[in-house]
């Protein structure tokens, strides 16, 4: 095990220990039902976090995630109410959010501006468009929609894997394949490792940057679909602050905030840790929900600190190779 993998293993240990502690207190948490619910309840976060993983791996950040999720929900609700077939609406919205991400990526690359300010503008823009479409919470009501909702797979010992849980797992698996088994994935890591070196080694910087933010846009759209399925409604104020939750999940999942190191699988565990904290608070019944934020923030701090220490140690060990002749 190298220091590079340490954050991921730390995440895994935190998750297992946390789960064990929870289970010791509430044996019911060991059931597959709880596990399946854990995935279903955090599916939108998990899907968006896959996209955010790629963005952060490349050394960037995407603050527009929450707004794009809300936009997707509102767009689906409004167009379905206006008579568009849900499947067509879903395809259409995914194209829109992908294009939206691509435009942000192009701005980041060609204007040579920090990602945070470009995606900040994107965040305002997407949320503004939501508000323009509607400020009400609009229920989504359509036979096709109900059919989508009823899709689920039984799993042994009583749990049910819903469609949205399936989407999250699929998104994670696709993310893993994309990150580790494709040339694009290597380019993403290369970009986050050292932009100049990557360019010298022939990585197509412009194309990769645009593709990364397009992917994040697409997955935010998919997360929006999941969220809309989960709530069966579109609401322009939905998913505020989700970009922070996704960033936290990615970092807790062991991805270096400066880019270049991390895994999609780790992000999955990071999402699950956040979900576990929430589930524990619900099981406990006496703790209030704000503890989730504090616990997540605390974990975020610990992991950022861990990253600093590891980077520092790596720097020192490199120092040591300089000969003292």
């Amino acid at each position, binding site marked *: 095990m190298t220091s590079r993998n340490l954050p991921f293993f730390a995440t895994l240990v935190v998750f297992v220990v946390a789960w064990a502690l929870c289970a010791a207190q509430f044996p019911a948490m060991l059931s597959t039902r709880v596990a399946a619910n854990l995935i279903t309840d955090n599916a939108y976060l998990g899907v968006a976090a896959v996209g955010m993983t790629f963005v952060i791996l490349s050394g960037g950040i995407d603050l527009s995630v929450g707004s794009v999720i809300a936009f997707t929900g509102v767009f689906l609700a409004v167009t379905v109410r206006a008579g568009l077939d849900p499947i067509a609406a879903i395809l259409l919205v995914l194209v829109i959010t992908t294009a939206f991400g691509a435009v942000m990526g192009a*701005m980041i690359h060609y*204007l040579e501006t920090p990602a945070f300010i470009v995606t900040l503008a994107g965040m*305002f823009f997407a949320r*503004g468009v939501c508000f323009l479409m509607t400020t009400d919470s609009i229920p989504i009501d359509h036979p096709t929609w109900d059919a989508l909702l009823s899709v689920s797979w039984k799993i042994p010992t009583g749990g049910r894997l819903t469609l949205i849980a399936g989407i999250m797992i699929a998104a994670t698996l696709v993310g893993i394949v994309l990150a580790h088994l494709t040339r694009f994935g290597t380019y993403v890591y290369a970009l986050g490792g050292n932009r100049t070196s990557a360019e010298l080694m022939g990585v197509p910087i412009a194309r990769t940057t645009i593709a990364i933010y397009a992917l994040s846009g697409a997955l935010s759209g998919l997360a929006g679909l999941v969220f809309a399925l989960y709530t069966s409604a579109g609401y322009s104020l939905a998913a*505020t602050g989700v970009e922070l939750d996704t960033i936290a999940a990615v970092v807790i999942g062991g991805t270096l905030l400066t880019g270049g190191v991390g895994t999609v699988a780790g992000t999955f565990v990071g999402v699950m840790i956040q979900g576990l904290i929430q589930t524990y608070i619900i099981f406990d019944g006496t703790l209030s929900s*704000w503890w989730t934020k504090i616990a997540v923030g605390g974990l975020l701090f610990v992991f950022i600190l861990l990253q*600093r220490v590891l980077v520092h140690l790596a720097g020192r060990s490199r120092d040591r190779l300089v000969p003292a002749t």
Partner: protein
Amino acid sequence: MTSTLPGRLSFGALPQFATLAAVLLANWLVFPDFFDLRLQDGRLFGSVIDVLNRGAPVAILALGMTLVIATKGVDLSVGAVMAICGAVAATMAAADYSLVAILAAALAVGALCGLWNGFLVAVLDIQPIIATLILMVTGRGIAQLVTEGQIVTFTHEGLIAVAGSSALGLPMPVVIALVLGLALAALVRLTALGLLIESIGVNRTASTYAGVDSRSVLLATYMISGLTAAVAGVIAASDIRGADANNAGLWLELDAILAVVVGGTSLFGGRFSILLSLVGALVIQAMNTGILLSGYPPELNLIVKAVVIAAILVLQSPAAGRLFGFLRRS
């Protein structure tokens, strides 16, 4: 006020004032009564006063944010710090503490939050956007911890007066923003703090090699940002006579950053002007009010802000710089 201000006000500040004038003019065109003022009970009323009053919290946040951005940093936590300090103030008001105690506690908490951010940035050397993200995530939870998850309301006369009263005919928040702005401008320009901040923002290594105590200056800068967030938080709490941990100061960090950027301070650090950041805050609020007055849905605001950011980015981008340089040469 500063050695470099006169020179910059005459030329460099032109775009900011021109933008403000244009926005105000647009408001006047769609709403001819825009500049009308009337005096009632020793207090001015009118759309312009409304712009000033509503713009005050963002203007106050922009004060601290200007300094942070000048050091090549950013403080994403100011909205959350507003919520925390608002929660502290409201909870204490509900328990009937004296106004002095309430203000002292809120400011102390704000300073502490700033110190935390400064510690992460200056001592642990974490990138500012990430360091302040931690408090941004945790802050609203902490605020709810303070209010124990309730929306606290109060009837504390003293605290209500912070946003509700007036002085010199102007609403109190406007007076606070002005006084704070002048005080901060004096603090950074009458001492050497401003120079040291700019120096660190332009070249931290060279500044440190010249003997500048970069760590302390960064700590002070983030602490000032925490303090201004605390003031904005108290005003917000006073305005709604309560504390709403979920919504107080929501997205205001972004408005504050936008105000600073509109005010001409570069996101890459260096030269800053507190006065122009205040102008930037006014521009943003005047746009908000204008959209409201012209009958468009207020929601259009966000889109307009996005377009403004995009426009500034395009104008400031190195690519545009090269293009202008090319056009000038050919």
